[in-house]
């Protein structure tokens, strides 16, 4: 019945191979881009078919086994796919957003050298991501896991002639491998732990069925899940392994949208959701996840304050939003986390693509005027909404969504997360408070970027300012679709409290077969008394809306008023200059009291903590390894006598140990 699952990763793989092998000969950009886009669009169609079939099906878990991969005595690993509500939702997001971004890339990458290379990698990425999502056992998932890392590495380093791009690529790969190490450790430990109970398996369904063999809350399951969580922090850019993501913005913007916002970085969330039953067994791990997520959300948001590069703002915002998803996972709100993953994919992809559209326009203008200003610096922008109305509208809608304004997608998902952090049996008020503050900050810096880019006075160099075009339809169409989704997608997950029309929380009931069991077994959920406390839930909801509004208002005040008022006043009433100056003075005071400390902390965290401490630790490990390497290297002296001596010492030590030891 679900026998065409294999087609879903198959199409992008074929596309990738065609473009990789023949792209150089095809040359025609339309054909290359078309092949790639059609490939992913076909798998989107297949995904749709399977998704809707699954919606109407009573049996919610399906596996398709293509054949045996490895059979090693104790276990048989298959090339197999697993379709359940979780993976169905994920493939929809991956192929859907993926198709749009492929389309967008045709316009965005126009004229780049290595156009075919880009699309080949992009398709390969989609293939890997789909393998990751669809794999029915941990090893197939691991193929995807490594594959997306590899493609991300290739795509970050796409502009390899730029040294920073190469470095960023290397950093991404190395940091990801630290995470992969955690993943593999978790995998091996789990494999052994279940095996020692007589079940040698890596199949997710079987793992879920046999998880009860492990002691709930025991040390073993905590170690296993913590290892997996380390893997997740690497892929999903959480403290302490998040540093690669902002650097990854060296890649082309569509890549940032697809890989570093919508899909790959959510792999960690997906993996935790996939193994939710194990994570549910370890409250310790859940708590760690919740706090790491909360800390990351707050921390990354504060760094977002101090960034002027539009893509870096979005990068830190992504880290922060991923923190929200981890918070959700940590408090047992698996559904809410996945829900947020989905809505985030829409609005963040839209934001990235919007920023790409802006960069594209700015680049065009600078190119026209033969200038070499930074097209990504928001200080060179402002007032762009006149030139790029579609981009502006879509960006605005997505900002509203991410800020959690009512009835936009982000509102439902973020509120659901915050509600769970507040009310869940695994929740914690501290996490809730941090989450709320982070939400406020998110609204602030997102609108800051909106205002700095699209509103206010245009700060672009005069020679270039009138040459900023709106982007072509291949770029704006994906923006419009994504903005539309960012606006309405939330309605599939209407919370119980405001469900006046009684349509029900669609996503929760859809995902229930995946998460319900774990939540029931380990008593995760909203306690009865709170679940029916509609007033409390609505109250909290209103509060978070108000907090979002405060953030937006703050941004408006600081980045609209401050920018415009001085110019107006000095222009119209030269005599009142002093007053303007006073006004300025008040603003300055305000800056001094509120904004600057925030900025300072942000800058400090960015420069001080991020660059010095985190990079320092990473580099430090590198130095230690290198030092050790060059030290050990000198044992290889080249003298025959030394070699013979070491052999003899080895013999004597071993024999001596066994005979006298």
């Amino acid at each position, binding site marked *: 019945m679900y026998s065409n699952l294999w087609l879903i990763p198959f199409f992008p793989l074929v596309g990738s191979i065609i473009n990789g092998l023949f792209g150089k000969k095809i040359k025609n950009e339309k054909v290359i881009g078309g092949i790639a886009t059609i490939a992913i669009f076909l798998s989107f169609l297949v995904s749709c078919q399977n998704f809707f079939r699954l919606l109407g099906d009573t049996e919610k878990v399906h596996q398709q086994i293509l054949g045996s991969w490895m059979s090693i005595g104790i276990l048989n690993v298959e090339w197999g796919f697993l379709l359940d509500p979780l993976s169905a939702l994920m493939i929809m997001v991956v192929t859907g957003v993926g198709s749009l971004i492929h389309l967008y890339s045709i316009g965005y990458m126009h004229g780049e050298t290595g156009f075919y290379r880009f699309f080949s990698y992009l398709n390969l990425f989609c293939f890997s991501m789909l393998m990751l999502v669809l794999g029915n056992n941990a090893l197939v998932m691991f193929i995807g896991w490594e594959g997306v890392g590899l493609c991300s590495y290739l795509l970050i380093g796409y502009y390899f002639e730029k040294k920073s791009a190469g470095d960023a690529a290397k950093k991404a790969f190395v940091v990801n491998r630290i995470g992969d190490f955690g993943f593999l450790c978790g995998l091996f430990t789990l494999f052994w732990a279940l095996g020692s109970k007589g079940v040698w398996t890596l199949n997710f369904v079987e793992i879920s069925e046999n998880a009860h063999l492990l002691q709930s809350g025991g040390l073993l399951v905590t170690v296993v899940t913590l290892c997996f969580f380390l893997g997740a922090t690497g892929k999903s850019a959480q403290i302490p392994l998040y540093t690669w993501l902002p650097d990854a913005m060296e890649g082309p913007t569509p890549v940032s949208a697809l890989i570093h916002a919508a899909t790959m970085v959510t792999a960690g969330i997906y993996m935790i959701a996939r193994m939710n039953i194990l994570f549910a067994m370890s409250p310790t791990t859940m708590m760690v996840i919740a706090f790491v997520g909360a800390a990351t959300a707050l921390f990354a948001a504060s760094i977002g304050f101090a960034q002027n590069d539009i893509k870096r703002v979005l990068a830190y915002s992504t880290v922060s939003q991923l923190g929200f998803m981890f918070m959700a996972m940590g408090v047992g709100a698996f559904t809410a986390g996945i829900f947020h993953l989905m809505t985030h994919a829409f609005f963040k992809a839209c934001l990235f693509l919007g920023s790409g559209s802006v960069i594209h326009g700015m680049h065009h203008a600078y190119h026209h005027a033969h200038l070499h200003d930074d097209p990504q610096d928001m200080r060179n922008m402002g007032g762009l909404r006149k030139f790029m109305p579609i981009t502006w509208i879509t960006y605005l809608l997505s900002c509203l969504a991410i800020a959690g304004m009512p009835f936009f997608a982000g509102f439902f998902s973020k509120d659901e997360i915050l509600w769970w952090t507040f009310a869940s049996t695994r929740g914690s008020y501290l996490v809730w408070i941090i989450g709320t503050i982070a939400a406020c900050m998110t609204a602030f810096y997102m609108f800051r970027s909106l205002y700095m880019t699209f509103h206010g006075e245009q700060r672009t160099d005069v020679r270039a300012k009138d040459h900023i075009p709106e982007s072509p339809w291949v770029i704006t169409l994906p923006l419009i679709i994504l903005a539309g989704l960012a606006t309405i997608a939330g309605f599939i997950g209407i919370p119980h409290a405001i469900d006046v029309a009684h349509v029900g929380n669609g996503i929760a009931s859809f995902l229930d077969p995946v998460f319900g069991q774990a939540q029931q077994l380990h008593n995760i959920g909203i306690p009865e008394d709170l679940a029916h406390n509609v007033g409390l839930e609505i109250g909290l909801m209103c509060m978070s809306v108000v907090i979002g509004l405060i953030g937006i208002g703050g941004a408006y005040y600081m980045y609209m008023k401050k920018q415009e008022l001085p110019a107006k006043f000095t222009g119209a009433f030269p005599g009142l200059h002093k007053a303007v100056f006073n006004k300025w003075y008040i603003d300055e005071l305000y800056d001094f009291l509120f904004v600057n400390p925030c900025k300072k902390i942000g800058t400090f965290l960015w420069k001080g903590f991020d660059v010095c401490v985190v990079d320092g630790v990473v580099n430090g490990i590198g130095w230690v390894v290198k030092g050790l390497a060059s030290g050990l290297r*000198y044992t*290889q*002296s*080249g*003298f*025959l*006598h030394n070699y*013979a001596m070491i052999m003899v010492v080895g013999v004597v030590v071993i024999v001596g140990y066994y005979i006298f030891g």
Partner: protein
Amino acid sequence: MISVYHYMILSAILFAIGSFGVLTRKNMIVIFMCIELMLNSVNLTFIALSRHLGNMDGQIFVFFVMTVAAAEAAVGLALIIAFYRNKESIEVDDFRLLKW
């Protein structure tokens, strides 16, 4: 009475002398002779044990060890000569191109 243990001890001493020589001598020919000494001490052990156990396997083994030692001698000398032709030296410390 000289027992198998005496032979064993003698061969162990010879083996030790041989390996000590390998570790300390500079001249490649001498090192090679030391290795031969080690092999011959093994031969002595085999013969002694074979006699002691009343079992011929050890002696057969000695035949093979001797043949192999001869083959090694031929190859080793050839290698040493090749090196000598290039470097005019048979000191082990004179080859140290490959290191680190």
